[in-house]
């Protein structure tokens, strides 16, 4: 008896859908209940276990100009075809196509709860937006390399359908998803660490098992032209807060921050919530964290325009880069809203 085949739906743009080039980029969705373009290749690669039951085609501009609406529209078309697996692209290095493929796989995976896979050149801007949501197989820049990427995409898709193990990003050829993968290693951690340190001592190449967080490049903000005309704010990650902790900061891994009137903060009960440093010196003299005394003198002497009366407090202990970035953006926005033009940040 022939086993029932899994249903696969593919998504492609108007170019791969053979509707047309840039002149047809405005066209909306169409559905073919058969494999078209790259979907023909996926049909061939998966023919033993799957059947491509439909190809969804959409113009690059139509999608990119109304992303939210187009995603919703596309997901409903996919849903109607009742797929078990959804494959988008590959988009190679095409910007708008990357955005549509990324949005489609992300939304289909989330709303239909089925496995998804796509393919992109690693520098496609959509990679950073969607790499955590799906398997984005690394492709070359140009679509002439479709035949190299498609088998990798098909293999991952098929194994997802079968519930089989997908190995690491490096071994499989997809873009890292920041997922911690459980894999049994032949050697335990101590043995691997010693191997690594010996290689390091010998100056031999080795591969770390931990990835350092990626930091943004931050262009320096332009300097202030005239200090006597600016309003300055004080910010810290040192965690000096009111005893009542109204903003629910945490001793470590804190994701919230607060802003407090300086005179009230020091006049009323306060403490250092940061559990990563000894707050004795700061509590003894809070000016060691927030040099309000000196800055008020600078204002009195006309050297500094004004000092914001509220201080901005976060707790930087064991903070993830992502959480810190979010807090930093929120504080920066709060400062901009108050017309602050310069800041001093003290870090413990």
């Amino acid at each position, binding site marked *: 008896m022939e086993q029932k085949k899994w249903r696969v739906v593919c998504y492609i743009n108007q170019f791969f859908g053979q509707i047309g080039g840039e002149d047809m980029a405005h066209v909306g969705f169409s559905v073919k209940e058969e494999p078209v373009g790259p979907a023909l290749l996926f049909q061939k690669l998966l023919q033993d276990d799957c059947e491509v039951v439909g190809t969804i085609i959409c113009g690059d501009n139509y999608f990119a100009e109304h992303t939210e609406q187009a995603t919703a529209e596309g997901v409903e078309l996919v849903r109607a075809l009742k797929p078990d697996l959804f494959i988008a692209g590959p988009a190679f290095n095409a910007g708008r196509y990357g955005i549509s493929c990324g949005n489609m796989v992300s939304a289909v995976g989330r709303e239909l709860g089925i496995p998804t896979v796509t393919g992109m050149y690693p520098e496609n801007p959509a990679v950073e937006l969607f790499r955590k949501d799906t398997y984005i197989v690394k492709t070359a820049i140009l679509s002439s390399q479709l035949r190299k990427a498609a088998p990798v995409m098909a293999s991952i898709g098929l194994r997802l359908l079968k519930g089989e193990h997908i190995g690491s990003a490096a071994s499989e050829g997809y873009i890292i998803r920041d997922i911690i993968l459980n894999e049994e290693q032949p050697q335990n951690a101590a043995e691997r660490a010693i191997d690594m340190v010996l290689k390091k001592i010998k100056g031999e190449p080795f591969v770390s098992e931990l990835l350092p967080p990626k930091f943004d490049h*931050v262009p320096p903000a332009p*300097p202030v032209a005239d*200090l006597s005309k600016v309003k300055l704010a004080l910010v810290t990650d040192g965690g000096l807060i009111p005893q009542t902790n109204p903003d629910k900061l945490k001793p470590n891994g804190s994701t919230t921050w607060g802003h407090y009137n300086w005179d009230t903060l020091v006049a009323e009960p306060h403490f250092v919530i940061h559990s990563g440093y000894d707050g004795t*010196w700061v509590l003894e003299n809070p000016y060691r964290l927030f040099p309000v005394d*000196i800055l008020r003198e600078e204002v009195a002497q006309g050297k500094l325009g004004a000092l914001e009366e509220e201080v901005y407090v976060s707790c930087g202990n064991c903070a993830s880069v992502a959480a810190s970035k979010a807090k930093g953006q929120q504080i920066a926005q709060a400062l901009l809203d108050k017309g602050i033009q*310069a*800041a001093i940040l003290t*870090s413990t």
Partner: protein
Amino acid sequence: MGIPVTQICAVVDIAKSVGSSRILRGFAITCPVGNPTLSAEDETTSRQRYVEKALDMLTKPGQSGMVEDIL
């Protein structure tokens, strides 16, 4: 445009690694702006030097990873 910021901290390597562009080396992790080993009056003077240096750095172009000290 952005808001220019002088970051005062003792562990300058962290500030450098995250891309701060106006970094002033603070006195200690537990006391960025001051010096608890000094008399109250001298500590205020020391804090004034940190603050005036930090303000001065705000008026100059920043450079990613550049660290300054109070002299």
